[in-house]
């Protein structure tokens, strides 16, 4: 298909997952991502692949655990409250080093919250989310096209590193429609054979998929191996983009839907002679700390913009490491910062002679 079609983010993501070789989908309905589950219910059987509507998110992530253990490409999708329920399973997947893709189309919280867009699950997504010292790779699309395109690296990274990859969108990205070119985007990564998979032990010794180790030095060693893997990922897999950073005095940092607000803000600020630039992390973990640190060598100050009350803000501050003040503006509970409000904040911060104090 070489013609653009108008399609929702949820549907684009679902179709791309199928084209990326998804073999089994397990999920439980929750707004605002039901289109993914419904799309899979229709398309997966057409392709002769597995679809199961589970009895809960808890069951869904454990079906993913079982499916992943057989070496198949598997995924689930949910929204914030459901992702909280899945954290146990994500920890087990991480402990057993099983590859899987988990999609979170974030909504307003905490608790049942609402079904409007949000970015308030950043901490949960980027710090592991469940118990234990582990990480998940977190990809943050910002357009419907990217909702589709990022599914290809999502599955490849999961297989390459035997890790959970979380695709972190929000209610707007899931529900909105934009023209999309649906293609098979090869990442050309050389993927290791899944010789650990449970395929029956005929002709080889027993494979065991597990996370338990009652012997302290062995579990410590296993943790050190995981940490070493996470360092390799931090070294090699950062994705981010930036614009107008060469002479930027103020750098706006935002991801996902907020990054699109920020692009408009920056172009309007430039028209008003404010030297603004922007950085958009595509991977939230590994975080583009180096790129932000490099920008901090030149910029006078930073402003993070989020649909939360300052979560990625912490990572930006860690990356900037005191070289410049880092400010925050954002809204949550389903509200979205407007271009006008963010632009006002930029102007306020850039007032001549203003002493910048954080936050």
């Amino acid at each position, binding site marked *: 298909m070489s013609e653009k079609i108008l399609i929702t983010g949820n549907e684009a993501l679902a179709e791309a997952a199928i084209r990326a070789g998804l073999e089994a989908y*397990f999920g439980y309905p929750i707004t605002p991502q039901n289109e993914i589950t419904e799309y899979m219910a229709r398309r997966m059987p057409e392709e002769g692949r597995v679809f199961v509507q589970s009895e809960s998110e808890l069951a869904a992530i*454990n*079906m993913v*655990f079982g499916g992943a253990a*057989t070496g198949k490409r598997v995924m689930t999708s949910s929204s914030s409250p459901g992702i909280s329920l899945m954290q146990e399973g994500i920890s087990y997947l991480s402990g057993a080093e099983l590859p899987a893709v988990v999609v979170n189309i974030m909504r307003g919280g905490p608790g049942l919250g609402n079904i409007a867009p949000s970015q308030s699950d950043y901490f949960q997504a980027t710090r592991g989310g469940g118990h234990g010292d582990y990480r998940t790779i977190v990809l943050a699309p910002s357009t419907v096209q990217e909702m589709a395109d990022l599914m290809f690296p999502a599955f490849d990274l999961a297989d390459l590193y035997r890790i959970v990859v979380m695709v972190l969108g929000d209610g707007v990205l899931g529900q909105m429609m934009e023209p999309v070119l649906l293609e098979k985007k090869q990442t050309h990564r050389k993927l290791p054979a899944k010789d650990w998979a*449970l395929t*029956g032990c005929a*002709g080889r010794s027993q494979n*065991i998929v597990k996370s338990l180790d009652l012997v302290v030095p062995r579990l410590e060693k296993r943790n050190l191996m995981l940490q070493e893997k996470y360092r390799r990922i931090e070294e090699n897999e950062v994705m981010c983009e930036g614009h107008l950073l060469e002479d930027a005095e103020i750098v706006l940092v935002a991801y996902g839907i907020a990054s699109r607000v920020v692009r408009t803000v920056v172009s309007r600020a430039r028209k008003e002679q404010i030297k603004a630039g922007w950085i958009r992390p595509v991977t939230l973990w590994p975080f583009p700390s180096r790129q932000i640190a490099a920008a901090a060598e030149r910029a006078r100050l930073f402003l993070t913009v989020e649909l939360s009350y300052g979560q990625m803000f912490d990572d930006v501050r860690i990356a900037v490491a005191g070289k410049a003040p880092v400010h925050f503006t954002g809204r949550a509970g389903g509200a979205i910062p407007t271009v006008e409000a963010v632009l006002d904040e930029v102007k306020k911060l850039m007032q001549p002679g203003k002493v910048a104090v954080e936050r």
Partner: protein
Amino acid sequence: MKTVFERTETLYDRPTHYCPGCGHGVIHRLIAESIDELGLQGRTIGIAPVGCSVLAYNYINIDMIEVAHGRAPAVATGLKRCSPDMIVFSYQGDGDLASIGAGEILHATHRGERFTVFFVNNAIYGMTGGQMAPTTMLAQTTTTTPTGRRSNREGYPLQVCELLATLPGAAYIERCSVHDAAHIRKTKRCIRHALQLQLDGVEGLGLVEVLSPCPTYWRMSPSDARKWLEEEMIKVFPLGRFKG
């Protein structure tokens, strides 16, 4: 010399970590023997639960996966749907299956998933040190029912076979026991039958509940434990076929 016992191939030759008089070792052996008799060692995936038998993969030499507490039927669903040609079984205790995993076993049965469940009921939490299970008997003393289980406080012992047999998705449900040699032989036939049904592609879930002694946390000698199982437990958990 006449051979009276031979270790079956799928069972590892190693010392057990189970307590004296525990039923797990026997049940492991019956499963391993059934797998070998049906020639399934190379095409079976087993699920080890959370509980005393979490290390089942150290005894049963097949591909195995260890899962979160109670989630075995969901994991089994993922395994079997993704690999329909494999024989998939879960091995679950009473806390795992009847308490924390009650939702998962109910819905896996409800969907008619085509895997096999070996449900070991010893009326107690063993691994965590003798707390009340859903299947704990009335008046039975545990560390969390120090004055004995009371129906008006902790409810009645949960009868899993009776409950699941009401679901159309259940293909085969039977309760047996390992308190003596005759019942061990009968249990073996049930385990083998359940695996055979899966091998034959029968639609629906198969579950074999095995009443099993826990002398350590029943605070009894192994022989008293077997006697208590026979005289008391079977009254509340009657043996027999409930479905299929």
